[in-house]
């Protein structure tokens, strides 16, 4: 990995870490409000809403923590991209059908409905997250020294 690629990789990693950690905090503090926000999106059956409200904020926090500490980064990057894809699909679906609901992305008490800014913001995070996955795969596709030694021809 070249120097500028390394800097870009770590910058994106830290940006997404900050975004996911920040996004998790209010949801962890107020799971009831987050459950209501999920319900308002009308994409999950009622029976799955509270379980999602209990687990998802912690998933965001762990993903953010892994990215911040550069631990399990490939797995965290893939989960980041997966979650952003799901969030993007939900935002697009609800904007397309004209459902006027608050995003609940960063705050459970936000009364403002989603708009094109929500869409564009999520687009940016989606691109960054898949970019991080690509960079992580590229980085981890390089052979490690022990493997290199084991495939050297004998003699």
């Amino acid at each position, binding site marked *: *990995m070249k120097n500028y690629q390394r800097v870009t990789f770590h910058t994106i990693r830290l940006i997404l870490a900050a975004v996911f950690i920040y996004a998790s905090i209010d949801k*962890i503090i107020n*799971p*009831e409000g987050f*459950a*209501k926000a999920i*319900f*308002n999106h*009308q994409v999950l059956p*009622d*029976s799955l*809403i*509270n*379980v999602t*409200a*209990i*687990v*998802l*904020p*912690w*998933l965001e*926090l*762990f*993903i953010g923590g*892994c990215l911040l500490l550069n631990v*399990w980064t*490939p*797995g*965290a990057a*893939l*989960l980041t991209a997966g979650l952003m894809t799901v969030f993007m699909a939900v935002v697009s679906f609800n904007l397309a059908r004209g*459902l*006027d*609901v608050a995003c609940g992305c960063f705050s459970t008490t936000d*009364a403002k409905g989603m708009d094109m800014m929500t869409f564009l913001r999520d687009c940016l995070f989606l691109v960054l997250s898949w970019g991080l996955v690509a960079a992580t*795969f590229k980085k*981890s*596709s*390089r*052979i*490690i*020294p022990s*493997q*290199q030694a084991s495939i050297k021809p004998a003699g």
Partner: protein
Amino acid sequence: MSDSHPTAPIARVPALLRQVIYILVLSALVGFMVNTFRPGGGIPLIGDFSEDARFTDGTGESMVITLHDATRAWQENRVLFLDARSPDLFAQGHIKGAKNLPWQDVDNYFMEIIDGLASDALIISYCDGETCELSHDLSLFLKDMGFPNAKVLVNGWTVWQEQGLPVEGS
């Protein structure tokens, strides 16, 4: 580490999957544990999202009024309908006789709207959409301001029109 001998990304997949599973399992475990031991109690694993459960007052009592009861009160001329949506949407169309008290600007409109209104009057707030919270917020506010008979007609504008009941507006 060598930059000259790339291996296929698939070679890393088992480790990648392990990491994904570790993060998912840890999140679920911590999430459920924190919810179980949260001071004041966590949320139930399966929530009640019925209208009566969602649109409650501070004591947990439902504030929902049925369309049937709302229509009868309107026919008997013993109700004030409050449209909690924006003035623009109100101007486009609203329940006949309703007044506009947009929730997001409630402080500016409130005194004018409640002027001369008896404290025991039946007041039905409505907005539009199953998940619209404006009418609920407005009704909670009205209860706090001393109007105990503040009710919510859920998805009011849509259900009122669907029944072909009288409306007015441009």
